[in-house]
């Protein structure tokens, strides 16, 4: 069974600090996706990483896909209150059409 483990589960930091969220697996994924979910809404895709070693930047957010395609990280520089939310990683596993989801990292950025 393919699993995605996210850490930390919860993170509360001050505005302006940097942080990193991790998404790890013992299995290889062809790609990994990162979603953000705000309270009362469904998740929204932030980025998809496909190639091992790939780095993608989305403003202050930097996403990396591990060389072996078993892990990914999300780094936020100078976090802002608007970054508050639940961050979820997900990847398509061996079973067609089914995304495997991490349990999520709840991020709170305090002004």
């Amino acid at each position, binding site marked *: 069974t393919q699993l995605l483990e996210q850490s930390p589960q919860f993170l509360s930091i001050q505005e302006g600090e940097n942080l990193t969220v991790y998404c790890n697996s013992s299995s290889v994924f062809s790609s990994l996706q990162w979603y953000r979910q705000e309270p009362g809404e*469904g998740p929204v895709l932030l980025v998809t990483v496909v190639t091992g070693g790939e780095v993608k930047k989305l403003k202050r957010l930097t996403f990396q896909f591990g060389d072996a395609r078993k892990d990914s990280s999300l780094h936020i520089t100078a976090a802002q209150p608007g970054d508050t939310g639940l961050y979820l990683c*997900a990847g398509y596993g061996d079973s067609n059409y089914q995304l495997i*989801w991490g349990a999520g990292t709840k991020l709170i950025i305090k002004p």
Partner: protein
Amino acid sequence: DAGITQSPRHKVTETGTPVTLRCHQTENHRYMYWYRQDPGHGLRLIHYSYGVKDTDKGEVSDGYSVSRSKTEDFLLTLESATSSQTSVYFCAISGTGWDEQFFGPGTRLTVL
């Protein structure tokens, strides 16, 4: 925003009663999914559909059934609701089944 609606948005029901949740899309996407989201568990797949009348089970399908008679509608039915089915239910759609999933706003279901 992808055109996905869910109804109802909130529902309170009693144990043993049947419940049907509806997902409607205007994107003509082939793949549709039903998830439940509970604290500490992330999103868990209940059932999904890869075409009209084509459905398959997900990770937590016990106690749930689905139907898809039209491309735009995917129904989730709890035949006899139990308190363990209290959750937030999300519908999602995907064009190819291997790409981004677009989510509806969710339905909060409480079973007393």
